């Protein structure tokens, strides 16, 4: 079947902010889909609230709406754009649920929008656990025994049906959110209750437990001609019970015989047909009994997924790209295989290597949270490694994780074995340690149910030689195990025994048959940012992708090195050569070597034109990861392009940066650096309290805390796992100050032969005061409450710092305004987290410009706008994962905890803020009851907020002290009990659902500070909980704005004048 001409315009819904369970993989999939549909000549309308994505770059779609992913906003977009079709399967669970909702609301019917890829029925059959179970049974497939419950009592009644332990699974949630294993009557109450609360349709499935069975996933594709192929099989090394997103996985599957595997293949095909996904990719999960090969179907996702992104990177088969083509009518046979070009996509990739995926966790950021791994996903990112053997891949994956701190092991073997038995973040490190201490494969199997094959491999890994036999060479990922020639240069390193070609001249000749094809032109290597983690996420991948595009546009070869399978940067289309390798000095240098030498010529000798011109390496776009490697690369003689190693060190080494600020006459908070705990305690006095303490060289404010006294400090130094030898930083904490973030471009100081020019791209004013990590606080661009002369100072100081450092490319400076004085908090000589936000707010791709500077251009060469004002206010809001970490305090602080961000765009600040809140999923109530309890210092501000909310006819309740303050101002308020004061107290109120908004500013710090239970209850009930007065004020103004009616929506292309303004229809109302 050829391309459909009966549709012209296609609506795509993105997956929104990065959250646990739904991350960068949907930027990869969505970007591919948009690109393909544009290539096919369709108009593409995109809605996504996440500014940090390549997908929301204006050139990726015809019209890009950065709007909340909610029926209201999307309906408005549909009414303005009138798309013919909606492709719901590329934006994760969010897009799927939203599309389903739009259908149920009749919106799609009203505007005649056709669901393509998967229709409503198919989505419902796959996503509604009850219907799915029935569909499977009807197709003759076995699913775990189960029962549906809509209440805790129904659940109790169902226990004899499913037995204990059983699995709770809420319907329609992401990444197993709210799921868990119930082993006792007591847990039943808690876990089922939580599940019901979280499920949008208040339904949970209770399921027979198959804990300990093998877990397998198959990635299936189906076309309009009902041809089905399996793209990849994935085996979870962690048996059933640990969410696939948290499991260490290997592709292809290792332990099933051909017969057992073909059985799974047959079932996967039966599943996709039974569910009725017309075209595209689906992910089917199975549990396989270790001793009987009995199979049960666990679930299927009728859309691209984390696993399909992994499968695409693991095989070279671009699932999302092909799914998009299938959705518009093509069949697999009609689509060529990118990599061989000669063969069609209607085949199943053959791998001649192994792939290991490793999750990246962030438990250390959530003290008090339940540490274990279970059926509900907790990892924040992942790394992938490719090796010729399982051992090589596994060892690489270990290196790719970039752990901040080495795991600490239990002293006694018993204790160690105990924890090996409990799935947790460092389970495999412990497992390997246990092997080193002599634990046997049988013991380990008994403890973990991990298949003996893997345990044997681990044992050999530990006993085998540290250095691998043979030499390091580069092999291609080619989908066909070398049966056909590969055209797409996607490489991984491997240790091989060099063949001897004797007299022969063969295409793969040479001492080691490296497959990296020679480049005719100059080459720049871009270092990616590795596995996503809190503090270093998709924003940096966005910058790396822009860097690669810019290098190519400059007529050079772009080489990408990264090990994150979720990302756009590891799409082989983005660079001229992709090396899927860990970001360690050794691995990066090996690639540099390969790029220097070039591949051996086809006649087998390393001739002149096999030699590449490696110009250097770009380290400023991938966050802290590449920056950490800069010095080592420089020392090894690899030229660093852009900001020099010297300049990086000048900015990062406080003992050098402090004096630099003094030279310039700029203020920094008093600070000191201590080499030991005792020294820290001494120095504290001269710096003065309150103090901000942290270990050096960390990202995202890791382990950073505010202490108000020597006692606090001592306690912190006690708790924080400080690495000996690494200094401790002490800063005077500037209370009640406004924080500012600046992103700027600089082309180097004239003295050092640069252009001596600086261009300020964006000044962002944070909504929350300094003390809340820049990554976690909302910020506004342009700044909504700063005087012109303060802004002038900010510009001047930023420029001076940039030139004094000698920055070539991007610089990010953070300031705090304390009283009337401007303090410099830090300067990051690299692309910052806010670069994509700024680029989209001002309509200038600053990462690309920075890369041009890195490659030698001058700011003078660009014609940059004098003013970037465009009549819009942009708000960036952070999205926090507290709901995933039961037990952790839902409190903002100097340590970053957010996983993602959203953007709100409007004509005024309150409306933009309201949009950002809606997009972040903390839906501000339009009325109802607000509960306020704040510190004495905040009481004046609280009364202001209270009076605004009162005018908006909110009912106001408060704890005694706060209530008195509010009453004094003549605002009606009811006093309710604190926790200590007996029931009904505030937590009862919240749990009864009698509170719609919580404003609570914290007293003191530490996981168990007062107010903890209040915030925990609010998070559990998904009630917006505001923990700063600034946030409270913004929220009140936002509510006022929102009550004036649905804000209008606008595409980026219109805002930046790249597309004529659409005629405005009367705003859509959902009926």
């Amino acid at each position: 079947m050829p391309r459909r001409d009966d549709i012209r315009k296609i609506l795509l819904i993105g997956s929104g902010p990065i959250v646990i369970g739904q991350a960068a993989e949907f930027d990869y999939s969505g970007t591919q889909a948009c690109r393909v549909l544009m290539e096919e000549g369709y108009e593409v309308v995109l809605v996504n609230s996440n500014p940090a994505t390549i997908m929301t770059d204006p050139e990726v779609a015809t019209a890009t709406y950065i709007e909340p992913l909610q029926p209201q906003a999307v309906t408005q977009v549909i009414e303005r754009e009138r798309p013919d079709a909606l492709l719901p399967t590329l934006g994760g669970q969010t897009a799927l649920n939203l599309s389903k909702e739009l259908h149920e609301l009749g919106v799609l019917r009203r505007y005649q929008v056709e669901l393509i890829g998967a229709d409503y029925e198919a989505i419902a059959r796959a996503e509604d656990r009850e219907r799915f179970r029935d569909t499977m049974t009807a197709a003759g497939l076995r699913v775990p025994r189960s029962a549906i419950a809509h209440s805790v009592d129904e659940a109790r009644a169902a226990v004899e049906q499913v037995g204990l332990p059983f699995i709770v699974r809420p319907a329609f949630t992401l990444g197993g959110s709210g799921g868990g294993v119930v082993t006792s009557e007591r847990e039943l109450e808690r876990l089922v209750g939580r599940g019901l609360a979280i499920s949008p349709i208040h339904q949970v499935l209770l399921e027979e437990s198959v804990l300990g069975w093998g877990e397998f996933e198959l990635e299936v594709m189906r076309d309009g001609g009902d041809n089905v192929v399996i793209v990849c099989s994935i085996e979870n090394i962690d048996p059933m019970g640990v969410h696939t997103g948290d499991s260490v996985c290997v592709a292809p599957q290792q332990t099933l015989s051909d017969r057992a595997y073909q059985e799974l293949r047959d079932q996967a095909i039966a599943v996709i047909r039974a569910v009725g996904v017309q075209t595209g990719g689906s992910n089917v999960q199975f549990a396989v009994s270790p001793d009987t090969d009995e199979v049960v179907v666990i679930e299927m996702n009728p859309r691209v997924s984390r696993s399909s992104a992994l499968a695409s990177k693991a095989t070279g088969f671009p699932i999302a790209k092909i799914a998009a083509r299938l959705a518009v009518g093509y069949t697999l046979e009609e689509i060529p295989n990118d990599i061989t070009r000669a063969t069609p996509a209607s085949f199943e990739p053959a791998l001649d290597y192994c792939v290991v995926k490793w999750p990246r966790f962030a438990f250390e950021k959530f003290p008090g949270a339940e540490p274990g791994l279970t059926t509900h996903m907790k990892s924040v990112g992942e790394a992938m490694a490719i090796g010729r053997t399982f051992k090589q891949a596994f060892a690489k994956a270990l290196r790719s994780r970039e752990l901040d701190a080495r795991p600490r092991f239990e002293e006694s073997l018993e204790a160690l074995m105990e924890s090996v038995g409990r799935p947790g973040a460092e389970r495999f490190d412990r497992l390997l340690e246990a092997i080193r201490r002599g634990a046997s494969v049988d013991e380990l199997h008994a403890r973990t149910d991990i298949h003996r094959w893997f345990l044997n491999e681990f044992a050999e890994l530990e006993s085998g030689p540290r250095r691998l036999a043979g030499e390091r060479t580069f092999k291609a990922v080619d989908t066909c195990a070398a049966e056909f020639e590969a055209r797409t240069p996607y490489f991984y390193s491997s240790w091989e025994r060099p063949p001897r070609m004797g007299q022969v001249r063969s295409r793969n000749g040479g001492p080691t048959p490296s497959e990296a094809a020679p480049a005719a032109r100059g080459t720049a290597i871009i270092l990616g940012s590795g596995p996503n983690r809190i503090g270093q996420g998709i924003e940096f991948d966005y910058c790396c992708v822009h860097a690669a595009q810019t290098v190519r546009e400059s007529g050079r070869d772009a080489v990408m090195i990264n090990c994150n399978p979720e990302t756009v940067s590891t799409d082989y289309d983005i660079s001229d050569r992709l090396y899927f390798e860990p970001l360690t000095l050794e691995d990066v240098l090996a690639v540099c070597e390969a790029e220097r030498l070039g591949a051996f010529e086809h006649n087998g000798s390393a001739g002149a034109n096999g030699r590449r011109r490696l110009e250097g390496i770009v380290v400023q776009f991938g966050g802290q990861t590449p920056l950490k490697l800069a010095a080592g690369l420089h020392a090894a003689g690899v030229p660093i392009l852009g900001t020099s190693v010297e300049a990086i060190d000048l900015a990062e080494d406080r003992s050098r940066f402090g004096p630099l600020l003094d030279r310039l006459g700029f203020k920094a908070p008093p600070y000191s650096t201590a080499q030991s705990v005792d020294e820290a305690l001494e120095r504290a006095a001269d710096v003065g309290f309150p103090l901000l303490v942290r270990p050096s060289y960390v990202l995202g404010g890791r382990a950073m805390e505010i202490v108000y006294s020597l006692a606090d400090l001592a306690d912190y130094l006690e708790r924080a796992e400080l690495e000996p030898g690494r200094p401790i930083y002490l800063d005077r904490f500037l209370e009640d100050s406004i924080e500012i973030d600046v992103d700027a471009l600089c082309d180097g100081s004239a003295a050092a032969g640069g252009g001596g020019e600086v261009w300020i791209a964006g000044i962002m004013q944070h909504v929350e005061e300094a003390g809340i990590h820049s990554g976690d606080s909302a910020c506004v661009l342009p700044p909504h409450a700063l005087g012109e002369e303060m802004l002038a100072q900010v510009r001047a100081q930023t420029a001076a710092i940039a030139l004094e450092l000698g920055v070539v490319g991007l610089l990010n400076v953070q300031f705090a305004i304390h009283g009337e004085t401007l303090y410099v908090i830090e300067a990051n000589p690299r692309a910052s987290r806010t670069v994509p936000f700024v680029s989209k707010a001002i309509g200038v791709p600053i990462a690309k410009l920075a890369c041009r500077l890195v490659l030698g251009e001058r700011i003078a060469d660009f014609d940059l706008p004098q003013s970037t004002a465009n009549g819009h206010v942009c708000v960036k809001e952070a999205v926090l994962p507290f709901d995933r970490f039961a037990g952790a305090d839902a409190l903002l602080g100097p340590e970053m905890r957010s996983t993602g961000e959203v953007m709100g765009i409007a004509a005024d600040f309150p409306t933009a803020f309201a949009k950002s809140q809606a997009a972040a999923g903390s839906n501000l109530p339009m009325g109802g009851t607000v509960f306020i309890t704040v510190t004495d210092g905040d009481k004046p501000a609280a009364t202001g907020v209270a009076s605004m909310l009162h005018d908006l006819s909110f009912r106001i309740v408060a704890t005694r002290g706060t209530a008195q303050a509010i009453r004094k101002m003549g605002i009606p308020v009811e006093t309710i009990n604190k926790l200590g004061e007996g029931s009904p107290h505030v937590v009862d109120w919240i749990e009864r659902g009698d509170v719609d908004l919580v404003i609570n500013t914290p007293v003191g710090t530490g996981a168990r500070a007062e107010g903890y239970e209040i915030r925990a209850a609010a998070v559990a009930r998904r009630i917006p909980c505001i923990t700063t007065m600034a946030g409270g004020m913004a929220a009140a103004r936002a509510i006022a704005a929102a009550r004036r009616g649905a804000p209008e929506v606008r595409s980026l292309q219109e805002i930046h004048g790249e597309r004529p303004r659409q005629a405005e229809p009367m705003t859509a109302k959902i009926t």
Partner: protein
Amino acid sequence: MTDAAAYVMLEDGARFDGVGCAADGIAVGEIVFTTSMSGYQEAVTDPSYAGQLLVFTYPQIGNYGVRDDAMESDRIHARAAIMRAAVDRDDSPGAQQGWLSWMKAHRVPAITEVDTRALVRHIRSQGAMRGGLFPGQMSERQARTLIEAEPPMTGRDLVPGVTSEERTVFEGGPGTRIAILDTGVKRSIVSELRSRGVTVELHPSTAGAHQLLENNPDAVLLANGPGDPGALGYIVEVVRQLIGRVPVYGICLGHQLLCQAVGLETYKLAFGHHGANHPVKDLDTGTIEITSQNHGFAVLGPDGSPTIEGDEAIRWETEYGAAELTHINLYDRTVEGLTLCEVPAATVQYHPEAGPGPHDALHLFDRFVEGARAA
């Protein structure tokens, strides 16, 4: 395991070092590779690999051990296994023995830690060729002499080495009876037929038409097998006598035999089709199946061309009436299936019985059996 240095050498002098495992010794023959990611035991026991050393492109071989019910014949036919990372584990559920111990017990040598991808890329660019597996201490000159002594695959009749001595009958049930001309039949073929209630007679490859038809079977099935189909004129003669008298079906070698019987010619592929992921299109229905493949030779179209460009079944006149080429391989558009339109006869080049590989084409056995019953 020997665990001593060993190497693979090709007739063009290319040498790939590794570590000897399984049985000690030397193996010489044609070197071919399979891209199938599982089913190593089924592969080496498939008689079609007689005379060949088998390279596994998938690096991890032996993971789940070996078990009796995965045998495709009573012994190992491949002359050696060439691997990147072989293991000898028998602790996987269902495993009866470790892969390497089992090969050793069958006195078949193997080599591991070879850069099999480099080897495969070499074969891909230079074509399948003779070669051998040699102990590390053996000189290259000696190795070369042994390789030279090995006759090339083209023109080779390897069937006598793999066919069954005398006629054997496998009861499947009353009613349908199918005679198989055993040129090295895989057990999966027999069991697929029996599971459909068919009684199966295996006949030695030397059987004549009258022997095959003695118990008036409802159909004759021409099996898979090793070697050059061009060297089997004596069997083609028998097939010519069968066509029209009884429904004739064929798989792999059997397909090549029927094609020759209706006047088509066979030729040697550069490096053959060996794997479990080849897309084959049924030109009548337009559906695509992912198939199991194992053949070094293929059939030329009636116009003498190795590939079929159109998506229409190619139809032409033979002495048995109209014939159609019904299936093509979407990788290289080579011939994958034949049907005679006026007499009951149909064949496929690929392996509907899987073993190893996908089950997409199992339904062909229903077709065969229905065809047999109808006649």
